């Protein structure tokens, strides 16, 4: 316990020759979360996809959608691409805390694995969206296939996030109640969040209704919970960092 605390104090105090402190780097990593949310939802707004396009669109409608405001859509996909990279820094910020929980090493690793796959869960659809928007004049059926290939994993690729949230949830709940690194409710919150994203797994069965990729239980609940998770975790980690600096 004392070694962990000593290591923590050393971390906070560590100053590089250029004056970049561990604390400052941690602060940047923590602030990547709201930036990620802003880029992700900003990209959806720029693409004109709030609410998202219906999965029941015909190939012609999908092609027409990409032919309209094509450059704005391309810009949106670049923002999405950058946003995916941004989330990597937040994975590192969470890892820093989980590493401090005695006995949670494997869970800390698991969080990094889930979070790393989570970067891909945003970056890969962004690339396929870019491909779809690259030649909007092509055969509409091909554009529709690319659109599906991007949209289905973009909304439905929840497994990385499940791994991440469950790893954090278990690690936080196994803490010594006397010396918590993160508040205990964060553990329940992460397990609940993991549970809530499960309806998203139903999206491939539907093109209309509440479980379609634009439906209330898949897009709106999952988007709110997912975006909200980054903001809540940001707030929690920022508080821990501030308390540490004092």
């Amino acid at each position, binding site marked *: 316990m004392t070694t962990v605390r000593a290591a923590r104090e050393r971390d906070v105090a560590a100053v590089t020759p250029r004056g970049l402190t561990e604390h400052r780097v941690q602060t940047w990593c923590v602030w990547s979360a709201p930036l990620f949310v802003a880029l992700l939802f900003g990209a959806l707004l720029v693409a004109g996809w709030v609410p998202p396009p219906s999965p029941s669109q015909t190939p012609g409608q999908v092609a027409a959608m990409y032919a309209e405001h094509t450059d704005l859509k391309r810009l949106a996909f670049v923002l999405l691409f950058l946003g995916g990279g941004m989330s990597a820094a937040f994975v590192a910020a969470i890892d820093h805390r989980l590493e401090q929980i005695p006995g949670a090493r494997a869970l800390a690793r698991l969080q990094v694995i889930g979070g790393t796959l989570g970067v891909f869960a945003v970056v890969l659809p962004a690339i396929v969206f870019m491909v779809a928007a690259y030649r909007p004049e092509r055969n509409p059926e091909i554009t529709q296939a690319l659109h599906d290939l991007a949209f289905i994993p973009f909304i439905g690729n929840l497994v990385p996030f499940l791994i991440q949230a469950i790893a954090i949830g278990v690690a936080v709940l196994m803490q010594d109640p006397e010396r918590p690194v993160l508040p205990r409710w964060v553990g329940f919150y992460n397990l*609940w969040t993991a549970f809530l994203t499960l309806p998203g797994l139903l999206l491939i069965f539907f093109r209309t209704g*509440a479980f379609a990729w634009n439906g209330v*239980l898949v897009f709106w609940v999952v988007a709110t919970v997912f975006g909200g998770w980054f903001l809540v975790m940001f707030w929690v980690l920022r508080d821990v960092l501030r308390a540490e600096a004092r």
Partner: protein
Amino acid sequence: MSAAPPAEREAPVSRTPGETGIWIFVLGDMVVFAVCFVVLAVTYAHDRAAYAADQQALHLGLGIVNTVVLVTTSLTMALAVRAARLARPRTAVRLVVATMAGAVVFAAVKVVEYTDLVVAGHTARSDDFFLYYFCFTGLHLLHVVIGLAVLGGVLRIVRRPVLGRADLSLVESGASYWHMVDLLWLVLFGLLYTLG
């Protein structure tokens, strides 16, 4: 038995049962179910006649049986918490086992209902009513199954002759979750079986 000195009697203070964290889970889950309830209400408002017609296919009797079973398990669970607080492990164990038995009965009846509906040709593919019927009751059934695991954990705790404050808190957390499962069913039952 000696009378407890007055100082040891706790004044009725306001207190959250279980640990605070479990309420994030419970309230959060209820918010999601609230969205499901709104989806059902919108489906009903959209085409009342179709909703009422589909409802005829449901087995109201089995629905009522399950409602009675689940409300009874809430009672046995509340009594189990009381027994645990009063340090009566044998009574508490019996009551938790009764609660778990009720959960198993509920799940079994649900399986009978599902089989019955599918044999009669009603599946999640039939229309919106049956899609939401299967998905929402399925989501609820998943809660019941998780609840069984939670109750199993509670059973291991109440078996001990002496319970600490933290143990009691865990028992209360489990009970809070179970009451939520019951409460959500009451609303689901009302909307699916009787609205229309």
